[in-house]
């Protein structure tokens, strides 16, 4: 009798997804899919609204990464008012970057400490009732305390630049609303009320030491779990090809490191990308047109960014990148679990960047907004915590949005997440008579490495919980996992 496994909802990811695994009569895996079952709506919902509302409205896509949507939309709307990224005033660029680094820092801290660390610290087969952040807090209170304060630091940066921690408003068409005061920035530098940015760098380095120690003890797990060849996509600095999170060119490489997208300007993305829909999921499958659907898909996010960049401009993070690259002899890293390591390098990078910006007097300037000649179209691309995020708007003569296209990080990672699920299905569940909770959790571990934000990916409004089901050959459900 064939069997089919469904995980729904997948836990400790942002949003609601579903995994189905079909087994045959010999318990061999026939098929494994990661579905997104929420309906997308934001691209239509925003049509007809004045363009200046976009950066505010799109934040409602997500309570976890609203800043990323805010900034991507703001960059697109800058173009509508005739201001290209390089024409933004220097203080406005730096304030936006500070906001963005605060967001990436807190989001990565959230993911590592709250979502990934339970599997790493407690084990993928630990009792599920304690295999969560609370279990980590009980077992490793000092790590938990640091995680809490790192996340708080990033959120306080967001609060300073955007007015509040969630759904604040920093950007205005052509610039930013406010500058930073000396008193505001001292809060992050002097360490009197909260641990300083210098402490954030120190703790980020400690976390990297932790992952290296973990790697030494669990090398085979990290090296093999959900490993598969893939393309990698990310923004790189326009001048030197270094890691870039706010504004850069798009670069992609294949699984061997050959360039497949050669530093193209953001505005040209539409010439290179195509999104295909499948009937079994609301999440589309983007790929590079010139490579086709089979070869043109890419991972995005921390691992992809570290793979595609030529270097990192901050010294500690660059040192860590070099060590990271040594693990694969300088070649492309296609090992999914190294995404956690790459994420920690980016935590360090953003901490170093925040330190540099907080010490920069340009933040105090009142040169905040620029104007240009009105256009009908705007494209904003940034690197959100989870990967490349594309916002594209067209507006009419009455300033109303007539078309909106969003390609979010988790959409790019759709094919990679499906490959990861297939890997676990084939390597962990295949031929097993008994499907244990620990086995099912490993499906989630593979998905979780991508830190997917499913509400973002489907542009849904509302909550989205994940769900695993196993079906037999006759399509009878024989196992189900729901944690709610």
């Amino acid at each position, binding site marked *: 009798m064939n069997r089919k496994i469904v995980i729904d909802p997948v836990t400790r990811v942002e949003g609601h997804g579903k995994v189905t695994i079909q087994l045959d009569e010999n318990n061999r895996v026939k098929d494994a899919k990661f579905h997104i079952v929420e309906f997308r709506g934001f691209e239509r919902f925003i049509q007809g609204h004045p363009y200046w509302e976009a950066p505010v409205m799109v934040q409602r896509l997500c309570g976890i990464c609203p800043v990323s949507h805010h900034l991507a939309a703001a960059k697109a709307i800058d173009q509508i008012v005739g201001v290209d990224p390089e024409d933004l005033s220097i203080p406005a660029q730096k304030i936006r970057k500070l906001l963005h680094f605060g967001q990436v820092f807190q989001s990565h801290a959230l993911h590592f400490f709250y*979502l990934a660390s339970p599997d790493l610290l407690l084990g993928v087969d630990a009792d599920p009732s304690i295999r969560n952040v609370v279990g980590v807090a009980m077992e490793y209170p000092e790590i938990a305390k640091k995680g809490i304060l790192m996340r708080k630091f990033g959120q306080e940066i967001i609060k300073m630049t955007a007015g509040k921690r969630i759904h604040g408003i920093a950007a205005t068409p052509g610039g930013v609303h406010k500058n930073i005061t000396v008193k505001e920035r001292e809060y992050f530098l002097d360490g009197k009320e909260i641990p300083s940015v210098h402490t954030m760098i120190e703790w980020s380095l400690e976390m990297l030491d932790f992952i290296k120690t973990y790697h030494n003890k669990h090398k085979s797990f990290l090296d093999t779990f959900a490993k598969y060849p893939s393309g990698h996509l990310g923004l790189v600095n326009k001048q030197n090809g270094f890691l870039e999170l706010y504004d850069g060119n798009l670069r992609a490489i294949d699984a061997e490191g050959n360039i497949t997208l050669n530093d193209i300007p953001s505005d040209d993305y539409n010439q290179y990308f195509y999104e295909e829909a499948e009937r079994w999921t609301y999440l589309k499958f983007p790929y590079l047109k010139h490579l086709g659907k089979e070869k043109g898909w890419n991972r995005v996010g921390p691992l992809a960014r570290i793979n595609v960049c030529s270097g990192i401009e901050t010294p500690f993070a660059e040192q860590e990148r070099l060590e990271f690259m040594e693990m694969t002899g300088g070649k492309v890293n296609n090992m999914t679990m190294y995404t956690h390591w790459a994420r920690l390098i980016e935590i360090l990078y953003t901490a170093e960047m925040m330190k540099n910006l907080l010490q920069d007097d340009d933040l105090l300037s009142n040169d905040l907004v620029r104007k240009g000649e009105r256009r009908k179209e705007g494209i904003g691309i940034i690197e959100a915590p989870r990967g490349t995020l594309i916002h594209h708007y067209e507006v009419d003569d009455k300033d109303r949005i007539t078309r909106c296209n969003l390609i979010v990080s988790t959409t790019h990672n759709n094919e990679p997440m499906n490959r990861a699920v297939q890997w676990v299905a084939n390597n962990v569940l295949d031929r097993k008579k008994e499907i244990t909770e620990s086995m099912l959790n490993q499906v989630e571990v593979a998905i979780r490495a991508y830190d997917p934000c499913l509400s973002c990916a489907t542009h849904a409004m509302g909550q989205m919980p994940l769900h695993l089901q196993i079906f037999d050959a006759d399509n009878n459900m024989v196992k189900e996992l729901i944690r709610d």
Partner: protein
Amino acid sequence: MEITGKTLLVGIGNIGREDDGLGWLFLDKISELFPGYFDVEYRYQLQVEDAEMLSHYQQVVFVDAHAGLQNKAFVWQKCLPEAPETFTSHELEPGAVYYLTNTIYKKYPDAYVLGIAGKSFELKIGLTDFAKVNLQKALDFFQVKMQIVNTV
């Protein structure tokens, strides 16, 4: 309950979803009535790091909309520490956050939950008439409970 030190009010909810805004609107009203008297924090949902925030206070009141109250405008109860068994790290109950404050920070503020009855939670700004009445009743009760009516 009598004010004996720093008090934090935590409003939980979302003003974009009708009566789910009760917690936030309660804080708005209290801040209007007694400016500077309480520290207030607005949350869509409680998260782990809120445990650290609680550790700085002697008294904490969580204010949230309540959908399951029958024939009551609100409910006031002691917040008890409760080890959470939940899959998500993004939405914790007040008792779970309080448990973390106790366990990680070894702090034990006097904590309460004020649940105010609401009945509609759709995507819309503004309270229902039902919730408006309950909000006022909760405000009246709270002022007495906190013994601040004649002291401000």
